[in-house]
């Protein structure tokens, strides 16, 4: 008789990046399917794909096929696309699907994600709440295809929302030859991630690419085939309007099931909701540590929850994220994380800041350090430093004393000890040895090599030795060292 317990039944609702990662992680932890049986349902008909790369699809650097994410080939993991969950019964532990079938669960994972918000703005929506003619959001592949059908080379496009997605979209549409304008209602672009000075330089970079940036302007009306009217009565021309003005968590299913919901579905460090058998991860979830809207925390949540629910690490916890924004825009290197500098608000005497503002080169760097730990940074045009600092922030490691050197990245010249007098590394022959060989009568490369072994390793020092020989042959007296 088989005495092993039957596999735990997990149902995941949502086949986005985080839901799919949950399935993938589960497959990795339980390749034989002895621990769990997992059903995943997703509304979209496509297999799971990398939403983060949608602006790259717009730019044409990726095709839709190229952003597909892996589907587990474990027989106990069953992925169904084009199917939506319509109701959760937490008492019967059952999910109703819109194809009339039901899924029973021991544990339910909500990975329902978020949807793009259309602002209450005249002309943007149809009476039934859908995007009006010429208008699109950019949340899924269908949106992406819609945007591509709306833009054409040389034609004007307006992007409403100057956050990360808006700016990445703007960069992508430039690659398609569109004339792009960005409209942002906040005082500056990327208001949540960077300070005003950085935003100003960033806007200049965009303007150099041909993007016109309008900040602190509220849109009043979308006029099809004409453009976006602003509160100062200006008209920003546009044949298409791409709305990138934020998202809202998809919480309706949870709410109907009586699960606690705030901005998102409320979860704790176990990634569990107010119902002990229902869990939530990704953009639909709201953890005290934040991180919604970024994929990295969502994937971390998927990994933790997969370890918990598969039983491979029941004690795994999600402790919150250190959200980090990394703009993906060709030719613009922007990284921002943590504390955002506020010239009025920063009264903390223990907060040190280092600022390099270089508008002429389109570069900006600001580090905020407390107790030798990085608490925030904005890095525009410092790719090497950004990579290093991101890791220091992520790992909580102390910041080097010489912060300016950090900004410059590691030296490209070899360390000094290798350049002083060593000529042939392979055989540890230095300049003095060669001069001595010369004094002893060696006058050719071969003669020097016979005496010192210089050049007999990789041969890389042949030009150096030849130069030395040349130099010595023109020195009338014996060469001196030092």
């Amino acid at each position: 008789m088989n005495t092993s317990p039957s596999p735990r039944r997990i149902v995941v609702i949502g086949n986005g990046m985080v839901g799919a990662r949950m399935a993938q992680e589960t497959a990795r932890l339980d390749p034989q399917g002895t621990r769990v049986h997992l059903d995943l349902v997703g509304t979209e008909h496509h297999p799971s794909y990398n939403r983060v790369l949608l602006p790259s699809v717009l730019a044409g650097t990726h095709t839709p096929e190229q952003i597909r994410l892996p589907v587990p080939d474990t027989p106990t993991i069953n992925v169904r696309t084009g199917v939506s969950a319509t109701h959760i019964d937490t008492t019967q532990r059952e999910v109703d699907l819109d194809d009339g079938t039901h899924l029973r669960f021991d544990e339910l994972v909500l990975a329902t994600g978020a949807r793009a918000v259309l602002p209450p703005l005249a002309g943007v929506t149809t009476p039934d709440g859908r995007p009006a003619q010429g208008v699109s959001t950019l949340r899924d592949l269908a949106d992406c295809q819609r945007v591509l059908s709306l833009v054409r080379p040389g034609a004007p496009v307006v992007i409403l929302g100057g956050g990360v997605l808006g700016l990445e979209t703007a960069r992508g549409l430039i690659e398609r030859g569109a004339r792009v304008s960005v409209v942002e209602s906040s005082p500056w672009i990327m208001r949540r991630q960077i300070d005003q000075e950085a935003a100003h330089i960033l806007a200049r970079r965009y303007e150099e690419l041909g993007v016109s940036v309008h900040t602190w302007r509220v849109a009043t009306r979308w006029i099809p085939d004409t453009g976006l009217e602003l509160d100062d009565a200006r008209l920003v021309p546009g044949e298409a309007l791409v709305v990138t003005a934020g998202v809202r968590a998809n919480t309706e299913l949870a709410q109907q099931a009586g699960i606690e919901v705030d901005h998102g579905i409320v979860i704790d460090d176990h990634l569990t909701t107010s119902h002990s058998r229902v869990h939530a991860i990704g953009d639909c979830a709201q953890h005290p540590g934040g991180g919604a809207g970024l994929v990295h925390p969502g994937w971390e949540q998927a990994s933790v929850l997969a370890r918990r629910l598969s039983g491979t690490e029941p004690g795994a916890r999600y402790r919150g994220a250190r959200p980090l924004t990394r703009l993906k825009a060709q030719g613009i290197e922007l990284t921002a994380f943590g504390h955002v500098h506020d010239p009025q608000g920063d009264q903390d005497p223990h907060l040190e800041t280092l600022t390099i503002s270089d508008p002429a080169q389109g570069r900006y760097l600001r580090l905020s350090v407390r107790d030798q730990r990085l608490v925030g940074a904005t890095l525009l045009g410092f790719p090497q430093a950004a990579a290093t600092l991101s890791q220091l922030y992520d790992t909580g490691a102390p910041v080097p004393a010489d912060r300016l050197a950090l900004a410059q990245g590691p030296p490209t010249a070899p360390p000094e000890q290798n350049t002083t007098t060593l000529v042939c590394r392979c055989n540890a022959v230095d300049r003095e040895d060669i001069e001595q060989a010369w004094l002893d009568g060696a006058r050719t490369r071969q003669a020097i090599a016979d005496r010192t072994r210089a050049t007999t390793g990789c041969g890389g020092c042949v030009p150096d030795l030849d130069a030395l020989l040349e130099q010595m042959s023109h020195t009338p007296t014996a060469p001196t060292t030092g």
Partner: protein
Amino acid sequence: MTTRTHCPYCALQCAMDLTPTPQGRLTVSPAPFPTNRGGLCRKGWTSTEVLTTPDRLTRPLLRQHRDAPLTEVDWDTALDHIAEQLLKLRTHLGPDSVAVFGSGALTNEKAYLLGKFARLALGTSQIDYNGRFCMSSAAAARNRAFGLDRGLPFPLTDLACAQVVLLAGANPAETMPPMMGHLSAPRLIVIDPRRTATAQTALDQGGLHLAPRPGTDLVLALSLLHTVGTQGHLDQDYIDQRTHGFEPAWEQATAWWPEHAELLTGVPAAQIHAAADLLGQAARDHSAYILTGRGTEQHTTGTDTVSAWINLALALGLPGRPGSGYGCITGQGNGQGGREHGQKADQLPGYRRIDDPDARAHIARVWDTDPQDLPGPGRSAVELLNALGTPNGPRALLTFGSNPAVSAPHTFRTHQRLAALDLLVVADFVLSQTAAMAHVVLPVAQWAEESGTMTNLEGRVLRRRRATTPPPGVRTDLEVLQGLATRLGQPAHRFPTDPDTALTELGAASAGGMADYSGITPQRLACDQPLYWPMPQNDPPTPRLFLESFAHPDQRARFIAVSHRPPAEAPDPHHPLIATTGRIMGHYQTGAQTHRVDQLRTAEPVAHLEVHPDTAARAGLTDEGWAHLTSPRGTTLARVRLDPTARLDTVFVPFHYAHAQAANNLTSSALDPTSHMPEFKLSAVRLEPAPPP
């Protein structure tokens, strides 16, 4: 009279001429040969000094009981004692109570007969070798991608014509200097957490140095695959016609767009884009190579990481085409031949699997025995060492050409296990650290004192020629094996002491296997023909593999869908840094040879710690001062060398030193699940100032 032979050290196997002086010593001069192009590094130049080292062993040593000192005995006493102990163990505990540990430094003939000795004379399944620490991850990945594992499937000289060569975790400027002569024209992309001499060369030649955090190479390779794809460099015709499995491999890469990979690897996204473009452009001209070394392989994810590099090569259409390819840079002198002829736990000669009934039948025929009498697969190196002296583990160990007391990971545990043995037999020419722990030490001949064949990093079989006679009292490894085998009841002819006789038998044993040596004869070796395996009898050698087809039955190469896993150990508040280990120019492996050469010892007499000045200052360390590195397993001592190009989170120590300065005091015995490679390249450590030794 001058003898043409090859260097005793690494897999480049530089050709050299040995000439006796009137005093009877041998002098070295470099010889023209494709791999070394007439060059030698300082180790090669000074290699003959080890032949006459004052502490050379010339008499067997025996310890009468565990606490007794080693004393000199004659050969019969030593061999009789060993045989008696081995027979006793076999009678009481079965044949697997005796284990054998071989080496990638042994000639093909020795490696072959050592495997035969284990399976036939001892009847044990418990044989593995130190190549498990070198080539196993690359070998496993190559086998699953190509169906065959030959380090470079093309002559080394092909590299010189390439536009771009990517080196992942390889530092030939330090470890194989003459190889750099082939890399002076291509632009280099070096992947290494350290600014090594090779990385510096890359920058000097207009190439790139990408310095990932240790343990994240796989992510970097996936990100490069993703980026070459999005930059339009995929060779779709090649992918369609010559490979399988692209889609799932690509989907794994989709999760690692450069800006995302940047956070985990610490490599700027802009560098990933630049590297992908440099590599991709060269690949379009079929003029790019990807090479891997131990840096990317010696991880618990080593096999998958090599698969990720191979995936990148396949996506660009590099392998199996003239002018481009993927290769791994073999480390030990006979790291290639050593993994082909049966000293690996799961293999029989000719690169055959020991669990393959046809392979067993073939080998049993050559060995004149019953296939059923051949043991099955045994434990891999670290598992074998960890089992020594445990209730179900071997009670006796015989080592040849290896010094596991220094080279194996987790020194403390390795020493515990070695000390728990009833019988430790070490064949060596000096009293290595392992020999010092042995019950019996057998003094054996060195490279210039015997002949045989070696297979270099290109899969080219070379003649090692005898240039001088061993000192009186010293025997060859083959003589030792015969002496033991006959005492264990084997007929002498099964264990020939003449290397050419052994080669002939090896040829027959390997015939029809993947690494077929049956066409390699003393006559052809004598002509210095370039003999690349596979070389079946009457067939020409194979300098370039896979030009027509890969070695899988369907002739296609395989993409393997691999994904990132974290290393076995992560830094924690008590061990906040990562220590990585490796080689330096002046020493070789455990230093048993190079520490006995004056010039090499005095140049690098002690272990050094390569550390960023800030990281050092934070730990209270000063340049040239001494430091303790402490991991969860142990502490090692090294002298501080500040390096402003170092990563802030990573320090480096070389592994050529023993005792308090042994790098493997730090490392763990966590293994790659496929190759069973230990994670030499990553231990969590803290730094503290230490008094000078």
